[in-house]
Structures are given as structure tokens and as C-alpha cells.
């Protein structure tokens, strides 16, 4: 289980859990990012923050600090690129 903020660009993951009490997570849920959804970290902004993630056919940007509470399962059965760092 990895926080979304630690994913590498190009890496896929399956959303394991989020914190529905937080505004950010509520926004993301409204966009369809619900537990079990496969997502991909597309890239980080040139200054390292925010992130661009893809899920459900859309690309959404969110800040690094706000991505920490989104826990992602990188070993689930989705097209995976193994993390290159521990």
C-alpha cells in the first residue's frame, strides 16, 4: 500500500482507500475516483507539485500534500510498472 504521492510518473495503481471527510477526496469521488478504481500517475508538474493523474478517461491535477491520504495498491491486477525504488 502506497500513498498516491509516492507513485512514479507512468505508474499505475488501484485506489485502496481515501478519506471521505476531506474536501479533496470528496471532489475526487464526485469525479468518479472511488475505491477499486485504477489510476495512473501521468506526471508531476515541472516544479514537482502538483500531480496529474488519470482515471476513468480523464486527467485531473491535485496537489502533492492532498494526494497523501489517497492510498493506492500498486500490486493489484492492473497494468503495473514495478516501482524502481523501494
Amino acid at each position, binding site marked *: 500500500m502506497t500513498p498516491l504521492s509516492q507513485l512514479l510518473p507512468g505508474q499505475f495503481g488501484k485506489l485502496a482507500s481515501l478519506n*471521505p*471527510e*476531506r*474536501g*479533496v477526496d*470528496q*471532489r*475526487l*469521488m*464526485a*469525479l*468518479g475516483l*472511488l475505491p477499486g478504481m485504477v489510476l495512473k500517475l*501521468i*506526471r508531476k*508538474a*515541472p*516544479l*514537482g*507539485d*502538483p500531480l*496529474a493523474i488519470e482515471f*476513468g*478517461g*480523464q*486527467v*485531473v*491535477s*491535485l*496537489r502533492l500534500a*492532498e494526494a497523501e491520504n489517497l492510498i493506492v495498491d500498486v500490486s493489484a491486477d492492473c497494468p503495473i510498472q514495478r516501482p524502481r525504488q523501494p
Partner: protein
Amino acid sequence: MSTPDAGLLVALVGNPNTGKSTLFNALTGLRQRVGNYPGVTVARKSGTCDLGDGQKVELVDLPGLYSLAAASPDEQVVIDALAGNIAGDRRPDAVVLVADATNLLRNLFLASQVAELGRPVVLVLNQADVAKEQGLRIDAELLSRRLGGVPVVLTSAWKGEGIADVRRAIARALDQRTPMKRVVWPANIAGALADVAATASADTGKEVTAADAQRLLFDGNATTADRIGWTVAQREKTLRSARDRVRNSGYNPMAAEPLVHYAHLRAALEGVVTEGRGKAGRTAAVDGLLLHRILGPVLFAGIMLGLFASVFWLAKFPMEWIQSGVDAFKGVVAPPLDAYPMLQSLLTDGIIGGVGAFLAFLPQILILFLFVGILEDSGYMARAAFIMDRLFSWCGLNGKSFVPMLSGFACAIPGLLSTRTIEDPKARLATAFVVPFMSCSARFPIYALMCAAFIGPLYGPGWESVVMVGMHCVGLLFAVPTAFVLTRFVLKVKPQPFVLELPRYQMPKPRDVLWRMWQNAAEFVSKAGTVIFAITIIVWALSYFPRDAAVADRIKAANPAVSEEVVKAKVQAAYVEQSYMGRFGKAVQPVFDPLGFDWKITVGVLASFPAREVIVSTLGVTYSVGEGAKADSQHLRQAMQDAKWSEGPRAGRPIFSLAAVLALMVFFALCSQCGPTIATLAQETGGWKWAAGSFVYMTALAWIVATLVYQVVIRLL
């Protein structure tokens, strides 16, 4: 049925980036009205839509949003407008839901929430051409059946395809009044919602709809409770036990709404969309370039430089035309009125001059909005915010603050108007507050005059450019900490998380961009114009009256051997000196004494409050070289270099010492001296509170910093 059709209201609702506004323009044919919802700075755009059979309805374009959870003012307006809770506005008779055909599931979440209101619905699947290109086949008929028989129309608003079908579908919805099929809530949630509705209704004595109950149960904020007057004490226990009931059924109460809706929609969309062979869009490839780690910022800088240069340089020509047009007009109007000097001055200096100075802003506003419109509609604006966010987030602003602040370097007014692209109310207010700090082009003349008259001759052209660049940074230097303090300690508005869709790139539709540019300009002229006009007339009157003919006679008598032009300039100076403005300037000069300003500079500063560029021509008048003075005027430079203190401890020393020159420039860099900016700030923040706050803060800050500069530099040298 023979109801008068003109009274019917239809609302247009949808996610951002669905082409909703393009559809709105196509349906109303630009027969539109723009107003404001009461109490909030959300525009109410509406227009007349012909349903094709002679029937006409009013169509209102509600702000784009992803969810009805009332987190921002825009979202609250949509909820209230749809439910008919806005004073003076009717409840819509039907709702047109606009969805992006390429991403139906996400778009239908909002539709499914709106269905809970039970209004007749038309579902428009826009951008059907793009969906087709991508190989998506959509069975509209099947979707219509799954959603309870509501009309489902495929359109490409950009190409103008399917618009007539939408008109017919609206007519059908108004006639048959078919509501969209609602989600089936699990028994425990349905029970909890019923409890909330019943208790809230009993406690407040008001009708509480199913949709109200959902907002009360699912939203963390209290907007709906406040509206119906359900107090904390009354609702606390009911809501807690209702949420416990939801939790016991296995749902987190804060996640239940999207979970249930999305499950419902997945089932409804089963078999509706089939993926065939198609082209993947180019968006990902373009992003690879425009958001590249190194190339991205370089291209960004290039695009923004282009935007800034256009606002700054392209606007110069029309601004000069307006200026020369105004001067020519004055030249025509003035001579016949030579016998009536007061009327002549009121018309030329007051009314024509004032209106002209105001109109001179229009080219910059139009050009900026043209470019902002292109950036927004193409999808690049979201990328710009993505690239810049890190630089702005630490002081409470966000990536979208960049364009308004950059525009502020040309002119604060278009900068303020472009803060409308910032959704987060807190970041928007803070951005609007700091935009006037950017060194706008109206500050340029005083910098140029001071540098050319003092810095250049004394220290050489090298220092002249250093000071010039430095002055352009002073405002920015104070703006950033201001934003930090404002968002951290002053603004009570809840910040919105910066969740931003990076939409598909798209060719902007010229008609939409031009139309929005025109609407923004028209709104600016009609709203800010009247205030600015009033301020101009007041300042004119203060520096014109009283006007005793004896003053002119005395000057003429004292200077018998001097050329007529010089006498004229001296008379003008004498009149200003004894005008209310001049007397006031002399009276308040002690306030500006710590900054090293004499009464002549003080009058210039005071007269510059409506428009800071006035300082150069006012100094021209008070230093008796005539009001036509420009920043490059040799006479004015000479007169200022020669000016000496006539009394007091500094008697005999030059007034324009390096300390005073720097203090004057810093004062102009920071002071709030622009009537149009204040009026626009009031308009954009929905009241005079922030405009007044900005005026007081900037003026006080300018005084303090300029005093420090003067007192430090005068002691060092």
C-alpha cells in the same frame, strides 16, 4: 394547454469543459442578458431560446460544476437556482443537462444528482463528433429508456449539429414533463434521508424536499441548514443518528452519495457505450510537450510573454487613437465656448477628458479577454495553472492567480476581471486584492520622468534602468507577503482544494471567444463607468473652483514683459494654487512632509488619486510649465531640478533630492491611485468592503514605505 410560453424558464446545467456555453450561444443566438445573482458575485446569464415551433422560453446558463455538494458559491447558486430558492428568480420548468459524450459516466453523476429534484429533464450528449472519432458508439435510445424516457440528444455544438433536436427535445420535455429516473437508495440510507426530512420540516415548519435532505445528510457544510433555519442545536442529534444509520449499513456517510450514484449509473450505462476502433486524441501527446519538465516552462514563458506583450503593445495603438480622438474632440468643442470658460473646462477637462481616460482602458481589456478566452477554451489555461501552482500555493493563491497578476503589469482592471477564472473564492479574493500592486503602465510616466530628470543625469543611464526595473518589482515584493497574511489570517472563506481537470485540447470557437470578450467589456463599461465618471467630475470641480478673475489680473499685471504663453502657465498655476485642491494640498502638506514632498507634489499626489498618470500633467501645472507636460518634457525637468525649499530647516536645499525622488516613486508604486481599479474591485468582490480595505491598506502602506525610504536615504547621503 394554453399557458403563456414566454413565462417558461429552462436551466442549462453541466460539468465544465462540456461545451455548455457554446450550446447556450447556439440556442439563444446571442440574444442574451447578463446580470448578477443577489448577494454573490456569480453572473446570471440568460437568453431567449426559440423552441422551433414559435414557442419561446427563457434559457439560463448556470455555472459549470461537477457535483451539487455545495462547496463553492457557484455550486450553491446552481443548487438554489434549480430548487427555485433564489429571491426574484423562478424555479426552472425544465433542466437541460449537458454531458460530454466522451466521458458519460462522470458527466452523468451531476445529472443523477439533478434528477433528485424531480424536474423534467433533457439530456444533451455534446461533443458527439469527438466521441465518434474516438470510436465510441452511443445508443441514445437505450440510454433514454434506462433513464426513464427522458429525451436524450446527441449534439456537436461546436459544429452546430443537433441544435434543432435540442430545441424540439426541450419542447417535448416541457410538454410531457418526464422526470429522469432517480437513483434507488439502499433502505437504510432512504430511511435516514426520510428521518432528516421529517425532523427538519417539523423543527423549522418549512417544506424540506428530498434533494434538501440529501444536502443536509451528505454535505459537511451547513448552507442548506442555514437556509431553512435549522439550528445546530436542533439538527445535531438528528444528523448524527442519521449518519450512524448510514454507517451501520456499510457506507461512510460522506462517501455514500457518489458510491450509490456511480453504482446506479454503471448499471444504467451497461451496453449504452460500445468502444470501436478510433483515434486516440492528441491531447496526451501535446501534454507531453506543453507539460514537459523543461520545455513546458519555456513554452509557458513564451506564451505568457506573448500575452503580456500583446496587452501592452498592441493596445498602445488604439489607446493612442482614442487619446488623439479625444484631443481632437476637445479641439472642436472648446473654441465655441471661449466665452464660457467654466463650461468649457467642465466639458473638455472634466467630461471629455474623464470619459477619454476611461475609454483608454478598453483596448487592453478587449485584448486581454480575447487571449484569456482563447487560453481557456483551448484547454491551456488549466495547464498554465498546473505549471504555476507550486509558485503560488505557499502564499494561499493558486496557479490560476498567475494570469491576473501578469495582466496587472499592463493594467489592473483587465487583471481584476480575469480573476473570474479562479473558482476558489478565497484565492480569488486574495488575487484580486494583490493585482493592484502590480506595476501597471500608468505608473510608467512618473518613473520615466523621475529617472530622466534625476537618476539619469546624476548617476548615468545604467542606474536609470536599475531603478526602472526595481520600481517594477516593488509592488510584487509587497504583494506576496500581503497575499500570505490575507489568506492565512484575514480571510475567513474556506479554501477549496485545488482539484483541477486538465481537459481535452480543443479549437476555440471564434464566436464564443469574441462574444465573451464583448460581454466582459460591456459589463465593465456599464458598471465601473458611472463611478469613474462621478470621481472625475468631483476632482475636476475641486481643482477648478474657486476661480476669481482677480487672480489672473494680478499675474498679468505683475508680468508685463513676458510672453503670453508663460503668463498663461503662471495664471494656471496660480488658479490651481488657490483652488480647493490647492488649499487642501497646502493644508495636508505636513502629512507628506516626512516623505519629502512640498505642497506642489502634494497637490499632484492628491489630484492623482482618481488616476495616477495625472501626476505628470499636474506637476506641469504646479511648476508653471503648462498642463501639456509629458514625461519627456525638458521644461518640466528643468523646473523640477531648480526647485528649492523656500522655508523651514531645508530652506535653499533642492526639493527633489535623491531621497525625495525615490520616495515619490515608491509612493506611486504602492499607493492606491486609480478610481477605475477601486470601482472594479468593488464590482468583482461584491461590495465596497474590500475596495475600501484595498484603498486604505495600499495608501497607508505607500505612506509608510515612502517615509522609510526618504528618512533612510536622506540620512545616508
